């Protein structure tokens, strides 16, 4: 066989193999997707059958919004940039900013909110105020040594980032709806999900941003 023809044959063979690989690949991806959809449906049904409403925690808490659904799917794999930006855009747009344009409340109340893990559990009294439980995951004021490390340290947050209007607004928005800034963050959406009131969020912002707050000493 002349060399040119042989090369062409080899090239064609490779092209054929590549084409077959693509078809097989696509078919298996489609099958994976179908299997995954079925597994997802079965899991959702199993979840429904596995929980009962109790206290303030209704079964509707198993209904996922778009961010929860996408963040579950991508929990253990890299989050595609377009998915992240879709989540961030819609959540940022839904933030209800304070009508008075003031983001900072009382850091002393903020400290109490940061300490309290009360709220939204079926074992909690829905009539008592919710907490933010910030210390569960973040270092804040240095006197509190019992802090968690799931989130970054916020010690000297204001001092480090500057006591600017932009930073105060950012802190408010971040506590109100973290998904507006970091898609699939581990942090709850305290404002968007009615965990904390607008005033409570302002108080937490004060804990972070008031130069007199123990966080900034």
């Amino acid at each position, binding site marked *: 066989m002349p060399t040119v023809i042989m090369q062409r044959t080899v090239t064609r063979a490779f092209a054929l193999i590549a084409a077959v690989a693509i078809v097989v690949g696509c078919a298996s991806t489609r099958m994976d997707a179908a299997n995954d959809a079925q597994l997802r449906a079965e899991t959702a049904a199993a979840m429904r059958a596995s929980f009962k409403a109790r206290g303030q925690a209704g079964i509707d808490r198993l209904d996922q919004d778009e961010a929860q659904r996408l963040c*579950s799917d991508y929990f253990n794999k890299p989050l595609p940039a377009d998915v992240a930006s879709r989540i961030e855009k819609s959540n940022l747009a839904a933030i209800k900013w304070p009508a008075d344009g003031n983001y900072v409340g009382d850091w002393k109340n903020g400290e109490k909110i940061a300490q309290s893990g009360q709220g939204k559990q*079926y074992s909690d009294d829905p009539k008592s105020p919710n907490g933010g439980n910030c*210390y569960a995951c973040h270092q804040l004021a240095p006197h509190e040594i019992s802090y968690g490390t*799931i989130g970054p340290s916020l010690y000297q947050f204001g001092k480090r980032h500057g006591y600017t209007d932009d930073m105060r607004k950012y802190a408010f928005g971040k506590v109100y709806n973290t998904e507006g800034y970091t898609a699939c963050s581990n942090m709850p959406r305290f404002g968007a999900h009615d965990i904390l009131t607008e005033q409570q969020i302002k108080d937490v912002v004060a804990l972070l941003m008031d130069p007199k707050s123990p966080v900034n000493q």
Partner: protein
Amino acid sequence: MTMKRTRAFGAALAFASACAVSLSAMAQASDAAAEIEKYRQALADGNPAELWEARGEAMWHEARGPNKVSFDKCDLGLGAGVVNGAYAQLPRYFADAGQVMDLETRLIHCMTKLQGVSVADAHKTLFGGPGQRSDIEALVAYVTSQSQGVVMNVSLADPAMKKMYAMGEKIFFFRGGPHDFACATCHGEEGKRIRLQDLPDLTHKSGAQKAYTTWPAYRVSQGELRTMQWRLNDCFRQQRFPDLVFGSPASIALTTYLAYNANGAAYAGPALKR
């Protein structure tokens, strides 16, 4: 036992008073962690779980229920009455029930099907509390103690087990509720803690092994022996989910996911925890 417990309570008191001393600076955080570790070690040589194990063992051999049958007729997967090493292979698919069962579900199954106990009675006191002893907790303590040192060996060969594992994994990463929490929020990264409590990373083998092989456990803060079903139930409460039903498909799926991930490690429960 009594002396051991006295020592344990002494250590607990010492720890409590150490906490009461006001600590001035952040540098104390590592000292506090070291103190907690000392406290854990002091408690480790006297585990009140033994009381639950002893009660469970007596119950195991006792003729119970309307049918007056003992658990010696109960098959945990290795044959009727075989307890040694049984927990290290659970959950598993049970053909006689046509479903995957964890230890707790299987015990309830034996109570209702073998001993003739009504379903309602079998579910009466699933978790113990002040003045309320749970038979299930005692039985679980006994059965699990008989797998101490046995290497975890949960099989996914049965398709029902494979499906349970896959569902368990999905549930582990399921974010929901007002706080957007999934199991993985707290248990998906290594070296994290909530407040001062270390969190096992259950997505990696070593973390899953260390955590799973030390449940059930006697919880010092509650004065109770707690089962895996309790552990999952209370995690979901803190996740702000509704109430996880005892023995529900989701609970068994998650247990299957965790137990299989712990394969290869020697079982070490019932352990003792804060």
